[in-house]
């Protein structure tokens, strides 16, 4: 919006509201989560395959929300939101992934004695 345009309802971020995009984003998010729920309840997959499958479904639901609900794209009004999200995503994934990985390897190396005392298995 130019500084000279006085009507806030003419702003690009107001004008890009789209019922079709919002309903599509909603339906896709629900469908992806419903599939993930079914995979959980059926319990027929190995854990590794399960976690990969539901992670992909979560990623697809988040992508649908980013594109259709947040309406992120490379247009002039949205490009900086898109770039900043892309730059933050590695921080989000790495901070969780690296922490989990560190402790995943730490537990067996430091708690073996404790596990034997407790009679627990890995």
């Amino acid at each position, binding site marked *: *919006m*130019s*500084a*000279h345009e006085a009507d*806030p*309802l003419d*702003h*690009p*971020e*107001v*004008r890009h*509201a*789209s*019922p079709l995009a*919002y*309903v599509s984003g*909603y339906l896709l*998010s*629900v469908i992806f*989560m*419903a599939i*993930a*729920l079914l*995979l*959980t*309840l059926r*319990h027929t997959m190995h*854990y590794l395959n*399960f*976690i990969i499958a*539901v*992670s992909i*479904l*979560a990623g697809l*639901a*988040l992508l649908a*929300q*980013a594109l259709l*609900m*947040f309406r992120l794209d490379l247009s002039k*009004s949205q490009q*900086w*939101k898109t770039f*900043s*999200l892309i730059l*933050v995503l590695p*921080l*989000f994934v790495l*901070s*969780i992934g690296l*922490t*989990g990985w560190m*402790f995943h390897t730490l*537990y067996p190396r430091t*708690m073996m004695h*404790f*596990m034997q005392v*407790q009679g*627990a298995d890995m």
Partner: protein
Amino acid sequence: MSRTETLTPAHRLWARHHPEPDPIAMKTLGFWLYMLSDALIFAGLFAAYAVLDHKFNAAGGPQIKNVVHPLEAFVQTVVVFTSVLAYSLAMVGLKARNRMFVLAGLLSAFVLGGVFLGLEINDFATLVAHGITPERSGLMSIFFVLIATHGLHMAFGMLWMAVMMAQVALKGFTTEVVTRLLNLRLFWVFQASIWVCMFVFVYLNGAF
């Protein structure tokens, strides 16, 4: 004459009397950057959950599979997604300059947000009634904190929504009101995105 004064406007990096930047876009981008930092708070909590989701950290008490109910969590998922849809459709009403449409959308999103929080509080109350409290173990602490942090965001979003309903009704679509409505939409959709991670990595992964 300085070199800056001889440059054409298109080549200048800045100018003393440059037109003001777009106030709406500047505020929505600023709010977006705040939300990305908020996402990193959730990243920290998810990292702590990933570490503490281990039988040792249950301290002989309940593990995650004992406290999560995927079907009930799916109902919450649909409710929060529908609330976000209602708010988004209110923005379609904003585009159409229809104040009643906007108010109806906000009210629907508010009510559905209340339903979501009601289900969550009921879930917590049931756990507490069974002696499953945050102080039971490290695992239960992070479980309650993670879910409650999202719930707290939802509660503040609803408070903000109530304020916006009053502002839309009393002030109409001023630049300030429209900017706040756009920011609140970003905040509300963000809650659905965080919930996707919670539903999949806490409720479904925990129940598997």
